[in-house]
Structures are given as C-alpha cells and as structure tokens.
C-alpha cells in the first residue's frame, strides 16, 4: 500500500473493527492473528514442486458482524528452491510493486449464533481480493470452528492467475498451473490477548 491515504483508510478500518466494541453483540467480539498460514501449489503438467508457505498472514475478524480483513506480505512466501522464489517475486507477483495481498470480506448470512455451535461449520465468504494490484470480487467456501476459545477458519480455493494479471511465459507454461490452489488456515484469538 504505497499511498499514505490508503494506509490511513486501512488503519481507520482496523480502528473501526478493533475499537468500536460498544456496538458489538458480544463481550469479546474482535479476534485476530498475526501468523495466519497460507499455502499454495501451482504445479503444471510437468511436476516441479511449485509450492510455497507463508506464516505471516495478519487477520482481524469481527465476531459481532462477520467482517474479515486478511492481509499477507508476498515476499514472505518461502519456496524450497531459491530460484523459484526469485521468479515468483520478480517476474510473476512483482512484489517490489505490490508487496501485499488483501482479502476484505464477510461471512454470508452471519449470525453470532454460529459461535455457539460445536464442530466444524461450513461458511461462505464473499468480498474483494486484491492481488498483484488487481481487485476482484470473490465468493469462496470455507469452514469455521470454535475451539478452546479460538475461532479457526479454513478454506481451500483456486486463484486463476490470469484474472489478476499474472502472465505465464510460454517457456514455463507446462510447469505452472493456470489456477493456483490456495489453502488458508487461520487461528484467531481474542484481540488483546
């Protein structure tokens, strides 16, 4: 986020989510994590172990409204091969220009009652995802589970690289999938703990 006004807008959004506890229906309605796990795999027909892990996803969830804000640093994706990591950052994600990806959304039909249920509950998240400087509407399935005072969010979904202006050179199109499979694993604890 290069524009300072966008930065201020993000802090305002975070401020609204984190500080306006008085309008919430729950005593503790704000949950957050700073080590959300994101994994992706983009293996094409020719296998080349194109997968990476990132454990620096920052997420704030409002358990009163179902609003989610999730932001990840692109350069924190770690690959086994250094060359692959360099190509990912320099040629595909252009992380020097677009250092973060962001998902701003909401659990559809959300009610705080879901937090009283035991076991894994299916949820649908809709909102906007910004990746490689391109913002698109998304609607993806996931699950929510309340366990030991934490809210666990999980989701697996595909990201079509072309949708986000990520071009695959002809030379490597057999190695790289057109749709990357993304796995999110976010364990949210009450904010301030």
């Amino acid at each position: 986020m290069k524009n300072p006004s966008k930065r201020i807008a993000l802090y305002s959004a975070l401020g609204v989510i984190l500080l306006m506890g008085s309008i919430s229906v729950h005593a503790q309605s704000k949950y957050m994590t700073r080590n959300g796990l994101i994994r992706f795999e983009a293996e094409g027909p020719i296998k080349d172990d194109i997968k990476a892990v990132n454990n620096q996803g920052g997420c704030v969830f409002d358990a009163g409204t179902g609003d989610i804000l999730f932001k990840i640093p692109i350069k924190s994706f770690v690959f086994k091969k250094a060359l692959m990591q360099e190509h990912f950052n320099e040629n595909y994600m252009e992380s020097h220009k677009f250092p973060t990806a962001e998902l701003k959304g909401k659990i559809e039909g959300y009610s705080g009652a879901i937090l009283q249920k035991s076991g894994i509950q299916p949820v649908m998240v809709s909102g906007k995802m910004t990746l490689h400087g391109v913002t698109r509407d998304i609607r993806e399935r996931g699950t929510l589970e309340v366990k030991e005072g934490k809210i666990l969010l999980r989701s697996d979904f595909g990201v079509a690289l072309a949708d986000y202006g990520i071009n695959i050179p002809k030379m490597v199109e057999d190695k790289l999938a057109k749709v990357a499979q993304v796995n999110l694993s976010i364990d949210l604890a009450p904010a301030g703990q």
Partner: protein
Amino acid sequence: MKNFLRLILAIILLVIAGFGVYRYLWRTNDPMNGQKADYRVLAHEWVEEFKINEQAANQKYLGRIVEAKGVVREVLRDSLGGMSVILESGDAFMGVNCSMEPGETAPSQGSDTLVIRGEFSAVTLDVNMTRCVMVSQSK
C-alpha cells in the same frame, strides 16, 4: 594424442558446467546467518518510521536485510510448527513480526533484548521480516 587430451578437457569442462547449472537451478535460499545487514534498527523506532511514511519506508527496506533489536512481546507457533517472534514496539496493535528459519531456538520471554536478522517483506498488521535468525540475546 592431442585429440584425446582435447576430448578429456571438453568432458571435464562439460561436467563442471553441468554441475554449475545444477547448483544454480537447485540452490536453496542463502542462509541468513552468513548475510550482512543492510540496516540496523530499534524495533520501536522502526515501527514508528512506517507509521510516519509507509511509502518511503517500504522503498527503503523492501527486500533488504535488516537487524532489528527489541524485547519479545510474544512467541507464536503456526499449525506446521513454524515459529514467529514478535518484538515489542510500544504500539498495542503493531509489532515487528519475525518469521524464524526452521531450527531456530525459541527465545526466552521477558526482559531479554534480542537482535534478529531477516529480510523485510511488507507491512500488514505488523512490520514483517521473513527467513529470520537470532543474532544475539542479552539481559
């Protein structure tokens, strides 16, 4: 005889070149332990720098090796066992988030001062560094 020596030399050069290409394609990330820091910062001052002008700070630090000094706010583990050390910044919401290299020892929490070296990746809720190693821990 001359042709035979040329052939041997060509084979040796081919093997060396092949080995070089293999090493280049399959190399792993350079260990952070052996790298020199581009910047040395205090955690609370560093976070403040981003709060004042994120754009300028991003341009300055993105992809650079940074050594950050501060005390531990918390040590986190993800579901794959990966460790993150959060350095105190004086800001309730924002710290310096250091994703540690596998095999790094968890620091003791408390008033110890740590110096952690890593590559700055971006600001999210925190100022993030990746592939981090512990440089020192002192009272």
